């Protein structure tokens, strides 16, 4: 049994690869779906700490509310979904 071939990873032109780190993925996801930078009713820009925002996301998705960027949360963020934000200002 030969050693598994060392796969060569190439960059495909036009690939919308989301080569983001999990933290970048989380930042973009929390913003796009309304969990952070939620404008308070009074109009003040409120930056909710990511831990609190993560807990909100985990509650919305029925995950354990750890407030951490754990694997189940990262996997959930990679799932295909509807583009309508979960939280609206």
């Amino acid at each position, binding site marked *: 049994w030969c050693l598994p071939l060392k796969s060569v990873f190439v960059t495909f032109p*036009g690939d919308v690869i989301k080569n983001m780190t999990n933290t970048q993925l989380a930042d973009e996801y929390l913003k796009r779906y309304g969990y952070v930078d939620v404008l308070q009713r009074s109009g003040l820009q409120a930056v909710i700490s990511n831990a609190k925002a993560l807990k909100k996301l985990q*509650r919305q998705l029925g995950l354990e509310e750890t407030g951490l960027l754990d694997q189940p949360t990262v996997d959930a963020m990679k799932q295909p979904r509807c583009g309508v934000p979960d939280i609206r200002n």
Partner: protein
Amino acid sequence: YKTFDGDLKWDHTDVTYRILNYSPDMEASLIDDAFARAFKVWSDVTPLTFTRLFDGIADIMISFGKLDHGDPYPFDGKDGLLAHAYPPGEGTQGDAHFDDDEYWTLGSGPAIQTRYGNAEGAMCHFPFLFEGTSYSTCTTEGRTDGLPWCSTTADYDKDKKFGFCPSELLFTFDGNSNEAPCVFPFVFDGKKYDSCTTEGRNDGYRWCSTTANFDTDKKYGFCPNRDTAVIGGNSEGEPCHFPFTFLGNTYSSCTSEGRNDGKLWCGTTSNYDTDKKWGFCPDRGYSLFLVAAHEFGHALGLDHSNIKDALMYPMYKYVEGFPLHRDDIDGIQYLYGPRTGPEPTAPQPRTTTSSPVVPTKPSPSDKTTTASTTTQVVPSDDACQIKEFDAITEIQKELHFFKDGRYWKISGNGERKGPFMISAKWPALPAVINSAFEDHLTKKIYFFSERQFWVYSGNDVLGPRKIEKLGLPSDLDKVEGSMQRGKGKVLLFNGENFWRLDVKAQLIDRGYPRFTDAAFGGVPIDSHDVFLYKGFFYFCRESFYWRMNAKRQVDRVGYVKYDLLKC
């Protein structure tokens, strides 16, 4: 469940929708059906009804787009964000947008509806056997014309059931060519093209010319994706090229080599290493029906739910069968209440074989007009209150609707004018006419009422004369419809039969009558109006019309009052 702030909802229950464009991933009829089923999910549990419009502004405007598609919320390429919709309201509110960088299917792999062949539009069956070989995609094997085909059963060698697969050589969609196939090569911007192209567009859709020269003819259509078409990459819609070379190795099927995300891809030319042309291979795809049912939930006023099994949960999950969870039903009934009363069903027409089912839910206003037709109808000033017209026909490029001594006109730009008095323009005519047509050669207008007919040439009139004079049977009680066919011929309809009139000879041709359903399969055989309009044949029965294209295919069933009368 959650509703939008202020419980945004429609202030009426007869909601309208319109499909603005199609995805190249599936036949238009499959997309139509997926959207209709997605609406039915909600109308099954509420008093809501959904009527499809083909023109004008509808409550819910549905469209496909990619990346930046014209609103402030761009899509993101394949996977990730699939679609979005806006809560009820004016303008963009209530609209639904679908990301066309996704692979839209019925949720379990390529949904390939066939055309022509001998399987009457059945879906491809994958895999299938042909000459002992198993195929999991459409193939051009066994043919010399390069048209991809498939078997609609598991074993073509035994059953011999086949149909043709979507391909730009067979038809195009949208555009301005009535589905005519591509012409290769064609000239665009002085350059010659041998295949579909995205050149000249910034939305990434593949198109082609349907004549040899787009620059002079300006006739075009969009190319349907073949079932082997790649998704995303830098060759969206191009078919895989097997075999292809990658890093010096030869591949005869899709591979995940070279990627760390395990996604299957292929080259769309014979050599990836030199051409760098590629795309993702078709996977199970996303169920357009399920995603649409979710998005229409938003368009009706529902926000996201946090119940994992609810349809309104934000994540996509493929489920068979009825997709609503109790939570979804509670949410939508909080806004609109439960469905009341039995399902109103439209009168089922006595039609010929395989005609599309008529819309089964006339809107409440139709019910009132149904009631009114059982009593003596006082001629209404409002054409939109009339359920059934005496006659409909195109005169001097305007569609005319005749009823009880009055008529209305729809101009080319959809503006409705009237009512006008028939007697003011054509004083010799009775109040009720059964049919009319304008002879394209002489511009004379023929009117039929019971057993008589009149011929107007400007203000001069000939008649009334008996329809027997034309060679029609002496016991024929009336002519219900008429349709110009080529130069100097007109088809005259009555129920199951039609005759061909030679206008010049003023006589019915030999060999008639013929059966309507033999020549126009799929339309009602008791239409009370038949006419030609903008190159299509229209057969009307009560509030509905069946539209047939030049290929004698019924390509549309709709409401006379919305689509033709522009109510």
